[in-house]
Structure formats: C-alpha cells, structure tokens
C-alpha cells in the first residue's frame, strides 16, 4: 500500500462503481476501499423455498437486523425511520428494487417554484445527458413517452409487462382520469450485456439470483477492474487523512485481521451513502478541521432526507399472481406529484403499484395483538385474502430538508473495529404528515376504482429509509452547502462526495438513477479538468 493512488474511492456501491469504471476507462489509477465483500448470486435465496424466512434476517435491508460484521450498527433511538443499506461490492444496489426514476425538471427548482428548501446548482437539462448514459449502462427497461416528463431519449430495452396487478391498477386510474405509466426499471426485459432476462421471481429486494437486475457489481465493477481499478474488500475506513496543505491525502483503513493501513492518494472520493459519508467526514479532519472534515458550513450530516413511505393495499377476488415480479413496481403515477397549495402542503409523491409477495408476509409482527386476530382460522382467512389477490400502491413522499434531521456520531455505539457508529436524529415534518394523509386518501379512491373488496393502509413504515440523501448538500455558497456542483468540497478541493449525500432536495422519486447520473456528470468533469486540479502530492 505504499503507492499513491491517483484517485481513492471509498465505497463500492452505486456512485463508487460509476466513478471507478469511468475513471479507469480514462486511464486514471483508481483504488477503491469497500468494507463489505463480493456477494455471489448463489448466496441469494430468491430461487429457494427459504426466501421469505431469510429476507427477515440475513437479507433484511436494516443493518441493525442483519447484525453482520461488515455492517456498522446505527443508533435509531431518536428517529422515526430506520435507515436501510447494504455494505458490499455493489452496495445497496444488491438489494434495491431498481425503480429507475429520473427527477422531474421542477425538482431542481423547488425554492423558485414553491418557496421552500433550495434550488439545485444545476438543472434537469444539465443532468439529462447523464441520465441517458446511465440508462444504457444499467440496461433500463421502459416505455418512451411518459407525459409526466419532458420528451426524452427512449430507454434501451422495452418495458417489462405490467402484469395483472398493473392492469388492474391502471383501470382504476383510468376511471378516475389519473396519470399512470408502465414503470421504468433497471431490470432487463431482454438479455443485456451479459445479464439474463428478468425471470420475474419478485425477489429483487433480497438480491437477484438470476443475475438480471442491474446491480453495480455486475454492471460496472467488472469493466472497472478490467481497466485497472483496484478493488479492496473488507477494508473499513476510519479516517480520511489531510496533509499540511489542507488537502486530502488518503485514508486509514482496517483489514479483516485488524491491521491498519494508510492508502495515500492524490484525490479522495467518498461514496459511502447518505449516512456513511457524513459519518466518515465527522470522524476525519483532526484539530485542523474541528467539527469534521469539509464542515466549515456545519452542514455535514444535516438535512438528512429518507423518504417516509406509506402504502395502501387493496384486496381483490380475482387471482392476480401477486407474488410475481419485478418486486418494485409495475406502473407508477405522478398524478399528485406537483405542488397544489389548496391541499395544505407543498410538493408531492410518486406512487408505485407493487406485488405483495409470498405467503409468510410479516407473521412475526403480530406478537401481542389478540391471538384470534392474527392466528387460528383468521391466519388462513388473512392469507387467502392477501396472498395472490392483492397489490400495493406505495407512496414515495418528498421529504423536505430540515437541518435538525441529521447524522451525528454516537457517544457509545461502535462497529466491530471500534469506530464510532452514526446516530440518526430524524422526525417527520408536518408537511410530510399532511402529504401522506392526502395521498393515502387518494390511493383509497384509486383502489376502490380498481374494484378492491377491502383496503388497508400503512401510514408510515418504520423500515423504509432506503433513500439516504442530503447530508453533504451541493450548492454555490460555501456557507450554505458542503460541496460545489461537481461534488467537490468547498473546503478541501481534492475531496469529493458523489453519493446521495449531495442532494439538495429529495424529490419524490427513488434516487439511484439520479445518484448515478450526478456521479457520472461529476466524474466526467473531473476527467476533463484533471490537468487543472489541485491534488495531494
């Protein structure tokens, strides 16, 4: 490890993989440190009878439930929502649903349009070519012409079928005159670049055993490594180091034998997600950067947004095969996406119509309820009602930035290497609560229009923090942002962040397409301007 890397990337998930692939292709020497490991497709349970059983532990998205040594525990005692993630090559793309959603043009101009939050330092049009490029790299399946968006380049693959649940949901929306569209997904409807056609097992969120879903261990890392990128797994970074000039000079990391290493680098890119990245910056900087590295604004860790998730389930008489995949979404709707102030709140949400999975469901969640409610004859009754006969309309509620919602270092909790864990302090806002209440009412109408015989709602799912955003926000003003529009720290010019931490606002969309597009835009700029950049020597 004596050599100085041109670029050190911390984290091998979505943004880290995009950065590594493109830097390596451009001939840049890349070293990536990943605390997790390479996961093989055979380790996923989606093609095995034990799928649901293992989804509640080994492949649960909450690291506190998994409790793996490769995870870090998170103090969520002061949070309404649990953050979800996975550490490994490919990161959380291993277990994401692969909703491949672009933000809308209005999402980049929230302050100008609605007088809340902030505008982004770039526009939808600035990001559009990178969305297009990522569609091709990931192998996105979708249908061109969605009227919820400006005209755009068609995705490379035709859409996956919307299935019985999608058709039923669509009929309800048509009766109401509401928007819907076959959903875009980073899941190939045809064999694509070495990946299989989607087999529709519906287990995307516990890993794809078919090697179909676009996770970056499959889409980006093989090419990155073939082009010379060095990927070191089991490498837990505890601190980004800084030289006498105040530039990032590398990182101290610990291997799985407990041995510390110092990887030196000319430039450091942090891609450790919206919780892991601020944690690492707060752990770094020493006396020179009191309060954490790159944190002169005091905003590292603040403005955490996690997309509170609510849902409506409709139960139908007819068989819907509602265990059939993709797990994420058959159709989506942006009918109530934009602000209408007469509703009493600002901004909105995307809806996604989803299957409801296997028969086991969440049996373990019934402890303490009246016995006859969950068990006995009612177990069979409830299973027959739900299993194969239901679908879910989910709500991705736009979460506005609030500096009090934040990631801090925990006083006592640590990971297995003794590094302080993050603590999440997060409360839903009044705007969010009103937004969710409104959308749940509209979803009830949509379910009734679709012919649901009965309906149930979940007002807030605690295990829903899949989308970790905002904790190192971009902006033009160093006093009100951590990063510039290219993801470079205002304070430490050779330190970059490319993950969801960079987001100024959250939108009401699943963020991975935007994370990847921003990472690509930033990395291409880095490559184009490499001769002009200040780097550590």
């Amino acid at each position, binding site marked *: 490890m004596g050599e100085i890397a041109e670029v050190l990337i911390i984290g091998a998930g979505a943004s880290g993989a995009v950065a590594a692939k493109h830097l390596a292709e451009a001939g840049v020497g890349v070293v990536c440190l990943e605390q997790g490991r390479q996961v093989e497709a055979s380790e996923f349970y*989606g093609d095995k*009878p*034990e799928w*649901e*059983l*293992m989804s*509640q532990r080994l492949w649960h998205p909450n690291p506190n439930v998994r409790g793996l040594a490769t995870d870090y525990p998170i103090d969520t005692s002061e949070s309404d929502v649990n953050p979800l993630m996975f550490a490994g090559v490919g990161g959380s793309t291993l277990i994401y649903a692969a909703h491949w959603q672009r933000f*809308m*043009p*209005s999402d980049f*101009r929230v302050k*100008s*349009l609605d007088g809340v939050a902030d505008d982004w330092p770039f*526009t939808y049009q600035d990001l559009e070519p990178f969305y297009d490029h990522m569609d091709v790299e990931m192998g996105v399946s979708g249908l061109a012409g969605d*009227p*919820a*968006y*400006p005209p755009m380049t068609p995705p490379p693959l035709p*859409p*996956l*079928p*919307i*299935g019985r649940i999608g*058709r039923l949901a*669509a*009929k309800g*929306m048509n009766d109401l*005159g509401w*928007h819907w*569209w076959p959903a875009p997904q980073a899941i190939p409807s045809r064999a694509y670049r070495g990946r299989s056609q989607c*087999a*529709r*097992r*519906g*287990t995307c969120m516990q890993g794809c055993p*078919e090697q179909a879903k676009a996770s970056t261990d499959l889409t980006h890392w093989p090419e990155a490594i073939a082009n010379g990128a060095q990927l070191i797994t089991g490498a837990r970074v505890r601190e980004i180091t800084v030289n006498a000039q105040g530039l990032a000079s590398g990182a101290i990391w610990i291997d799985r034998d407990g041995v510390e290493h110092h990887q030196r680098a000319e430039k450091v890119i942090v891609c450790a997600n919206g919780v892991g990245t601020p944690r690492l910056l707060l752990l770094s900087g020493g006396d020179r950067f009191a309060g954490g590295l790159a944190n002169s604004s005091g905003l590292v860790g603040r403005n955490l947004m996690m997309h509170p998730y609510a849902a409506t389930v409709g139960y139908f008489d007819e*068989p819907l095969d509602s*265990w*059939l995949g993709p797990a994420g979404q058959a159709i989506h709707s*942006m*009918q109530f996406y*934009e602000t209408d102030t007469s509703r009493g709140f600002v901004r909105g949400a995307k809806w996604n119509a989803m299957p409801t999975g*296997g*028969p*086991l469901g969440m*049996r*373990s*969640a*019934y*402890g*303490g309820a*009246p*016995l006859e409610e969950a*068990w*006995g*004859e009612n177990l*069979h009754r409830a*299973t027959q009602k739900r*299993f*194969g006969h239901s679908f879910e309309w989910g709500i991705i509620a736009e979460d506005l930035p609030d500096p009090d919602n934040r990631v801090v270092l925990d006083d006592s909790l640590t990971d297995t290497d003794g590094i302080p864990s993050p603590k999440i302090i997060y409360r839903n806002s009044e705007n969010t609560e009103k937004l969710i209440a409104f959308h749940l009412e509209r979803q009830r109408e949509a379910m009734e229009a679709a012919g649901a015989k009965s309906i149930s709602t979940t007002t807030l799912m605690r295990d829903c923090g899949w989308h970790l955003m905002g904790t190192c926000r971009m902006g033009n003003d160093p006093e009100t942002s951590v990063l510039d529009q290219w993801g470079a720290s205002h304070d430490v010019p050779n330190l970059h962040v490319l993950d969801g931490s960079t987001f100024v606002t959250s939108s009401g969309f699943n963020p991975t397409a935007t994370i990847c597009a921003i990472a690509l835009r930033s990395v291409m700029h880095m490559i184009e301007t490499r001769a002009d950049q200040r780097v550590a020597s």
Partner: protein
Amino acid sequence: MSALSDPRRAALNAIGDVLIPAALGMPSFTGAGDVDAMVDHVLSLRPELADSLNQALDRVGAGEEAATAAERLNREDPDGLATIGLVASSAYYMVPEVRRIMGYRGQEQRPATADEEHDYMRDNLLQPVIDRGPIYRDPDGG
C-alpha cells in the same frame, strides 16, 4: 440431531396447531406434513431464534392446555409467542403440500413472453393517459 428436545417439540406442535388449525381447506400445522423436519430446517437457517423459542416453550406448563398456554404467552411474553408463530408459520409455508393447496410454486421463474408486452397498447388501456398529454411542470414557465 434434533434442534428441539422432545418436551419442547411437543409444546411447539401443540401451540402450532392452535395458531395454525385445520380450517378453510388448509391443513393444521402438524397435519401439513413433516413439519418436524421443516422446523429443524428453519432453526438451522435462523439459529438466533432458538433461545427465544426455547424460553417461550419452557414457559408452557406441564399438562397445560395448548390454547390456554398460547393465550397466556401472548399476554405475558408476546415476543416469545411471536417467535413460536414465526417458526411454525415459516415451516408450514415451506411444506410442499401446503404450497400445492395454495397454488404457490414459490418465487418461480416466469420470464415475460412477447404477448405480455405492450398489451396496454393493443387494447388501448394506456390511450387515455396519452390523450391527456403532458402533466409535468416546466420550471421556466413554458
């Protein structure tokens, strides 16, 4: 080697039949098939459940009627009862006969066929959405 002692297995099977009785065309927990093997399989995959399961089963009194025990556990040790329920239902829904009755072949491979694609175009299901035109907001007011 069996994952459970005989008394604990007997208690699990008795309470399992309370939680999952024969009804509505479905077999009971113990009537479903070789649930003993399935329970052992569940515990081999989820060994962290064993302590909670054993503690809950040990709270069942000798000769206590199973329905009474289940009600009492649900009041006094809801987490323990939930673990019994999770182990029993996980085992139950993996029994092939149970799946056959439910018409569930597991999370099967069913790649899309060409006639499933774009069916909403062929029958004009999507047409009203197309006809209504753009709904996005242009930040520049266009």
